[in-house]
């Protein structure tokens, strides 16, 4: 059964998803569903220590275990020059440890066996003699002179990795010197993990007869993975086919190359049969790349009447054992300098220092456009504290400091050029929809009765859609993206893009763009992604970049096809090309509306009746290099009630008003907002990956690293304003990450608003009930 969807002009409509029919039948094809003949299974032995020298590894018992075909250690890989591999951040990372381990759960050895169970049994038989070394878990302690140097392989004998800064130090300091009011706050963004429901995994399939390596991997960036594999292994790139089949969620977790991938490839090359590696949830959380882990200090200089003048930010970034942050290469702290947010500061200065500790490497952009979540949370949190100090309503302070509509395009003090926005309009809509005035009245009444109710605002600005490629690249590869469209003789279309969706609905939204541009029905267009042999080169799906880059490529590629179609239409209509007009559905002759040909007529003619001097066929490729990023934004409001007896916070209402420019499919946009808010909620109230003093991971599974269920999750309310991006071909901006970027501050601001009577200005996330309970007890509140 298929619901009929013959929608013409599908743009902006809530078209049901084309990917769903297979997924609701259990016929998706995720990487673990790939079952190949003679396939073997790989399991990895991991370090129990966070920092230890490896004295000896004895694999003899494992080699003799039932079903075992191959055992690999770092020494074996070193012979192939593969014991280390490059990270996306320009550092290197161990594939299998040779002389020492630097974090708990680090990859030490691997076993390939006939079944997964046999491989798991055999890794228990590997004997490793470790000599424990002093452990550094605190990045501040890592900088102390007596701290052990963790990375002995590096030339720089320090745990300090890099220093990065943006903005104007002198101008900012001058303003601070004169400022009537300075507000300073330390804010922690804890270590979290994207933890998509499907863990990471791969099947490496080297064919000894053809010499081709087919690499199935749950990947957000298959082309980048192909190039990275070619660079790391020296295997010729044209003989590598990376296939990213259905991906069970990514959220940034599936951008990097992980050691298990390299080991699986080596094993398949050695054994000449397919080798599968699927990690467990524990391996996913405890070894694949984490997100955030920023220690931030912000200072805002302001006048007494609430004009914010300058912003100064200092940050310590814990990158773990290897700097494997997934950022554009020139931006080690990503787009963190968007930290001035929605406000018109005169000056700003931002510094970040990256530090090594004995923890897993990272950090990835977890549903985030490269450190934008940290930045948005910081500014939205500290603006609230400024309002508190000035005794002003947080809405009033925001309205007084917003970048005004007429200032766009707006150059921020850290150098970004915001494309478009109307912050006041969006916030006012949110206030009206939630009934802000009445809520404040209710709160006053409740306060008088001793009840704890809070209202939290977040009016964030995001920055998404990297390139432009003059400043954005990953290891030198420019951050463009691409589309290729083929129109077949019957007017049916196959389109392939360089990005790779993981639930965002590209098979539907990109079909909508192409159908709209070509005057076809949504059912006439099939969108394919994820196979590097068929799709044009692209940088992948993360950082909300798919619609800003590949979406633009799809529209412009379709327009390229329309340009050629116009020539063929002129031939069919027997007029000059200049006399042909396109009305969105057909070509007709200027001034003669009766005579027209559709795209289907043209497609048929492109293969059967091509005029002289025109190449047959109807297809095109477009590589889109965006002229700028897009700047989606939103106004979010949370309403919470706090239980005085337990400290539990109940989110009573949450309204998200987003502005992501023109909307392709409102149903999908709303779905993305629901999902992102849920992850923001989890980060605000539930998620943290702490380590003890010995570097033991204290939340390596979903019993300790909490994921919200349907019972925990609040009901979401959504609305939108539309301020198109002026430079994007269809006026769209990215949206998938806005709710995760913007919501944590709204939740936390609401809690602190509820606790305002006690003078508490800040609590670090996650806001567990015990933290609130403790504060209440300290203030003598006992029930």
């Amino acid at each position, binding site marked *: *059964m298929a619901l009929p969807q013959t929608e013409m002009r599908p743009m902006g409509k809530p078209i049901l998803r084309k990917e769903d029919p297979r997924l609701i039948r259990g016929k998706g094809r995720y990487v673990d569903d790939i079952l190949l003949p003679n396939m073997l299974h790989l399991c990895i032995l991991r370090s129990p220590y966070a920092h230890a020298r490896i004295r000896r590894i004895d694999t003899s018992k494992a080699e003799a275990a039932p079903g075992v075909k191959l055992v690999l250690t770092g020494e074996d890989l070193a012979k192939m020059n593969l014991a280390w591999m490059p990270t996306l951040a320009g550092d290197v990372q161990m594939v299998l440890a040779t002389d020492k381990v630097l974090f708990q759960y680090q990859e030490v050895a691997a076993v390939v066996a006939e079944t997964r169970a046999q491989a798991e049994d055999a890794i228990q038989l590997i004997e490793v003699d470790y000599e424990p070394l002093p452990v550094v878990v605190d990045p501040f302690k890592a900088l102390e002179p007596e701290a052990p140097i963790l990375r002995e392989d590096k030339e720089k004998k320090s745990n300090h990795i890099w220093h990065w800064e943006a903005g104007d130090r002198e101008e900012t300091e001058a303003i601070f010197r004169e400022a009537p009011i300075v507000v300073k706050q330390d804010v922690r963004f804890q270590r979290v993990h994207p933890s998509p429901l499907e*863990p990471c995994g791969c099947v490496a399939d080297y064919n000894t007869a053809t010499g081709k390596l087919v690499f199935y991997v749950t990947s957000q960036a298959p082309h980048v993975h192909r190039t990275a594999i070619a660079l790391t292994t020296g295997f010729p790139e044209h003989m590598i086919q990376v296939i990213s089949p*259905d991906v069970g969620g990514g959220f940034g977790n599936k951008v990097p190359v992980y050691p298990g991938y390299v080991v699986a490839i080596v094993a398949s090359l050695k054994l000449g049969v397919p080798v599968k590696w699927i990690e467990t949830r*524990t391996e996913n959380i405890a070894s694949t790349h984490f997100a955030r882990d920023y220690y931030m200090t912000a200072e805002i200089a302001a006048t007494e009447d609430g004009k914010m003048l300058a912003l100064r930010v200092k940050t310590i970034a814990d990158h773990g054992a290897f700097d494997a942050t997934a950022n554009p290469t020139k931006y080690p702290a990503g787009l963190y300098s968007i930290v001035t947010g929605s406000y018109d500061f005169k000056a700003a200065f931002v510094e970040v220092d990256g530090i090594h500790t004995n923890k897993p490497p990272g950090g990835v952009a977890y549903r985030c456009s490269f450190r934008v979540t940290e930045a948005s949370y910081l500014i939205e949190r500290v603006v609230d504290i400024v309002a508190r100090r000035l005794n002003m309503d947080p809405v009033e302070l925001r309205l007084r400091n917003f970048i005004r509509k007429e200032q766009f395009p707006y150059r921020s003090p850290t150098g970004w050029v915001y494309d478009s926005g109307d912050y006041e309009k969006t916030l006012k809509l949110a206030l009206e929809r939630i009934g802000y005035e009445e809520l404040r009245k209710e709160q006053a009444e409740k306060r008088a009765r001793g009840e704890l109710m809070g209202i939290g605002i977040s009016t964030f600005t995001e920055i998404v859609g990297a390139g432009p490629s003059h400043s954005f690249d990953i290891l030198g590869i420019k951050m463009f993206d691409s589309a290729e469209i083929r129109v077949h003789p019957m007017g049916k279309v196959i389109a392939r893009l360089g990005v790779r969706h993981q*639930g965002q*609905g590209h098979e539907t939204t990109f079909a909508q763009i192409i159908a709209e541009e070509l005057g076809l029905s949504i059912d006439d267009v099939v969108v394919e992604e994820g196979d590097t042999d068929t799709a044009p080169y692209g940088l992948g799906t993360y950082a909300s970049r798919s619609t800003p880059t590949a979406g633009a490529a799809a529209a412009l590629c379709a327009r390229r096809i329309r340009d050629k179609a116009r020539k063929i239409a002129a031939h069919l209509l027997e007029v000059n090309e200049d006399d042909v007009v396109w009305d969105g559905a057909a070509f007709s002759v200027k001034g003669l509306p009766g005579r027209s040909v559709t795209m289907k007529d043209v497609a048929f003619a492109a293969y059967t009746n091509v005029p002289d001097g025109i190449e047959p066929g109807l297809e095109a490729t477009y590589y889109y290099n965006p002229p700028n990023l897009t700047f989606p934004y939103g106004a979010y409001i949370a309403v919470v009630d706090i239980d005085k007896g337990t400290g539990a916070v109940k989110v009573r209402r949450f309204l998200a008003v987003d502005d992501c420019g023109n909307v392709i499919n409102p149903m999908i946009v709303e779905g993305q907002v*629901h999902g992102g808010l849920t992850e923001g909620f989890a980060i605000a109230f539930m998620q943290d990956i702490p380590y003890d003093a010995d570097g033991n991971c204290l939340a390596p599974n979903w019993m300790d690293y909490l994921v919200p269920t349907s019972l925990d999750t609040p009901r979401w309310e959504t609305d939108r304003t539309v301020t198109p991006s002026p430079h994007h071909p269809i006026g769209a901006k990215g949206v998938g990450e806005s709710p995760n970027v913007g919501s944590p501050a709204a939740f936390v601001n609401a809690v602190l608003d509820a606790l305002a009577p006690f003078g508490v200005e800040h609590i670090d996330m996650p806001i567990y009930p015990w933290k609130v309970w403790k504060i209440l007890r300290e203030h003598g509140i006992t029930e």
Partner: protein
Amino acid sequence: MKIRVKVNGKPYEADVEPRTLLAYFLRETLKLTGTHIGCDTTTCGACTVLLDGKAVKSCTILAVQADGREVMTVEGLEKDGQLHPLQAAFWEEHALHCGYCTPGMLMASYALLQENPMPTEEEIRFGLSGNVCRCTGYMNIVKAVQSAARKLSVESREAVGEVATSGTAAD
């Protein structure tokens, strides 16, 4: 060990290691890969199937425990090329993004509606709280279950109506 088990109405006989989990038996031996695996702590419910009509997490049941019993997986929902109303509702209400949780969600919802054909929103949220979705935020999943419940109740009323009509005719 030899086991006999009926899966989606079809009888199977197989030799399994005693430690084989039902989830792996379904996925690897029977090649029914619709049942997914998402965790190692019985937290996520991606592996939910019905065992003799009850929702179970197949990652926490041994294949040998299914001996002589009946299993239903997501692949068994569609009948004669017709999507089950729950499947159609998940599609219509946009109750899935990546789709990895969907088979487990469908099976848990199926069991819920068997027990409680007209659940309230609270009852649905409680009934599905053993199933994690990392993508959707659950609102549309709740809506889908509500919409399927309405559709199923109309269908069952119609079916009852038909029986009554033919009964009258036979009299």
